[in-house]
């Protein structure tokens, strides 16, 4: 039996590549229609083809979200769209609306159907139903705890995917139309306005808020492996390259360390701290070991912390001047202690010395996001290496 799958979110082609290079086994993407992130960049058919080709060369997979809840007007071209996406080389569709399942299974034996968490599937009998319908994998409701996950796997034998990291819905996925009613944006068709992060006034002295903390299951990866989960899913198709590189890279090390029996307590603490620093909200394991409770929510409205650690993406190497070329993201200055990290997992401690602009003019500080800068460094690094404050 192979290792558990690490499944990453990719909002565009660059994120897809970063995820796979940093250790994801598979990525899930949205097409230009039918996905639940209508506001994301999303993939054209050409990009899907390129993404699949890139992934397959690495022996990895690409899944497409087709998980809106369809209205009549949305259905007209969906089957021809599926045909075109299959031609691009997609490995699986993540679906929510049941009428899609039989079309894919009937026409494409080698393409998997994964049932979206939007269906909030939470028990053995519901999973059995979808298994009988030909579904290959079920993404369980986020409300399902460890014991129930194990029972479902033991009883049904179907591939089970669970979320391990990222934002949580307050309500059952799919069973929430707050966005529709409050903002007229359809939550089940990709327009969710995250109303559960709004503050509502009420008769009490404080606003009513019901936003949840994010999910972080780093501590429980071994449990998930032991109970037979097939795939570990990271949330966040709209997250930054740095966030994805850090989260995927950290979970890759945790997973491999568990399988290889090399994950020390010290190393785990470093990875856990790294995950904590890149998060913009507090985290919890929510329903995994108990019912979610008071401690899993916020009571002060929208709480998000901006992360300033990410200094930039390394985009090349200036051999003439022995400099890394980078695109700046956040302010830094000479003397700052940093870490340069690469997709293959190498890290280099680095104290910022001199900062140059693209024409090798020395700068006092780096203060313009998106500016091309150069830093003296003796080695050329892999594409998509990054630099962060430590």
């Amino acid at each position, binding site marked *: 039996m192979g290792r558990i799958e690490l499944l990453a979110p990719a909002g565009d082609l660059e994120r897809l590549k970063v995820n796979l290079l940093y250790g994801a086994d598979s990525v899930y993407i949205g097409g230009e229609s039918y996905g639940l992130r*209508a*506001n994301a*960049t999303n993939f054209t058919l050409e990009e899907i083809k390129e993404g699949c080709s890139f992934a397959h060369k690495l022996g990895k997979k690409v899944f497409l979200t087709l998980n809106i*809840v*369809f*209205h*009549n*007007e*949305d*259905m007209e071209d969906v089957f021809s769209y599926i045909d075109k996406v299959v031609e691009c080389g997609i490995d699986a569709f993540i679906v929510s*609306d*049941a*009428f899609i399942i*039989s079309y894919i299974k009937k026409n494409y034996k080698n393409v998997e159907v994964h049932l979206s968490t939007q*269906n909030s*599937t939470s*028990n*053995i*009998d*519901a999973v059995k*139903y979808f298994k*009988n319908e030909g579904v290959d994998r079920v993404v369980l*409701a986020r*409300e399902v705890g460890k014991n*129930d996950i194990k029972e*479902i796997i033991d009883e049904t034998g179907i591939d089970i995917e669970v979320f391990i990291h990222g934002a949580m819905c*307050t*309500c*059952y996925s*799919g*069973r*929430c*139309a*707050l966005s*529709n*009613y*409050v903002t*007229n*944006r*359809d*939550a*089940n*068709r990709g*327009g969710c306005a995250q109303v559960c992060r*709004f503050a*509502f*006034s*009420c*008769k*009490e002295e*404080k606003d*009513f*808020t*019901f936003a949840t903390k994010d999910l972080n299951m780093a501590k429980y990866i071994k449990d998930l492996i032991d109970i037979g989960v097939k795939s570990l899913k990271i949330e966040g198709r709209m997250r930054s390259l740095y966030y994805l590189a850090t989260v995927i890279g950290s979970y890759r090390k945790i997973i491999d360390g568990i399988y290889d029996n090399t994950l020390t307590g010290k190393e785990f603490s470093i990875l856990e701290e790294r995950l904590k620093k890149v998060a913009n909200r507090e985290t919890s394991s929510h*329903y995994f070991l108990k*019912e*979610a*409770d*008071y401690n899993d*929510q916020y009571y002060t409205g929208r709480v998000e912390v901006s992360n300033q650690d990410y200094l930039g993406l390394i985009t090349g190497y200036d051999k003439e001047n022995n400099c890394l070329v980078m695109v700046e993201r956040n302010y830094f200055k000479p003397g700052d202690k940093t870490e340069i990290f690469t997709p293959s997992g190498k890290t280099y401690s680095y104290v910022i010395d001199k900062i140059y602009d693209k024409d090798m003019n020395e700068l006092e500080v780096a203060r313009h996001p998106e500016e091309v800068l150069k830093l003296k460094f003796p080695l050329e690094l892999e594409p998509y290496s990054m630099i962060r404050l430590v």
Partner: protein
Amino acid sequence: MKLLVEFNDKKNIDMTYCDGVILSLENYSVTGKDTYSLEEICDITNKYQGKEIFVSLNKNFFNKDLEGLREVLLRLDKMNIKGIFFYDIAVLQLKRELNLKVDLVWSQTHMVNNYKTCDYYFEKGVKYALLGKELTLEEIIEIIKKSSIISMVEVVSRASIAFSKRKLLTNFYHDLGKDPQKELIIHEKVSNENYIVKEKKDGTAFYKEKLTNGTSIIKDLFDIGCSYIIMREDLEEFNILLKDTYKYIENNCQDESFILKYKKLGDYTNFFFKKTIYKVKKNG
């Protein structure tokens, strides 16, 4: 076209001016009003023979619920029940496994939105569908025309709009250091709208405070051949509305004064005449 009702309280049940009722089974149903034990449901089916008794089991089920769910379904199957409203697909699986005769109503709140999926579930043995409340009248009509499933449309209610497994009011009041309340009206500042939050044993439900007044679309539904409309007892003098609606349908929805009279229920028509936006921007 038949008229189904959900009454606020078991004491209010009066079948004179409706064709049937929806009863929420205790411990197996969320977002409903009063709940009923199996014995009470049995009594009601015996008392109101000739009326259509539907039972709502619209919880999201977890493994621990399944054994009880089997027993409940077997007992309901022996009663004179017209149908079971369900959210969780486990109910459909168990209907197959247990070879139940009772009919099912696909009632996945915000997901019952197109004729193809309605037909999919019809082919899987589901007889009825309670259409999503986020549909336009045009979409409802298209589903009724194109799908083989028997459609139900909720026309008067305070719309149930979300459900969470979390104890959101308990947590909120814990944070305030106050005794928990089971109901709270909240106000969204930008849209200037109120919502009702209710916490029950299985989680927290959200409702739109404003009453959906679908009295003006009853004739359209009647004309298209809609089989059922649903009204929930969410207003004062509900019995008068019920009686008037029942008579209105009896007279083939010809009495225009009915529509004029019930303009007084307000002009909020939910999504019947308003599409939701879902593509906020086009890709560049």
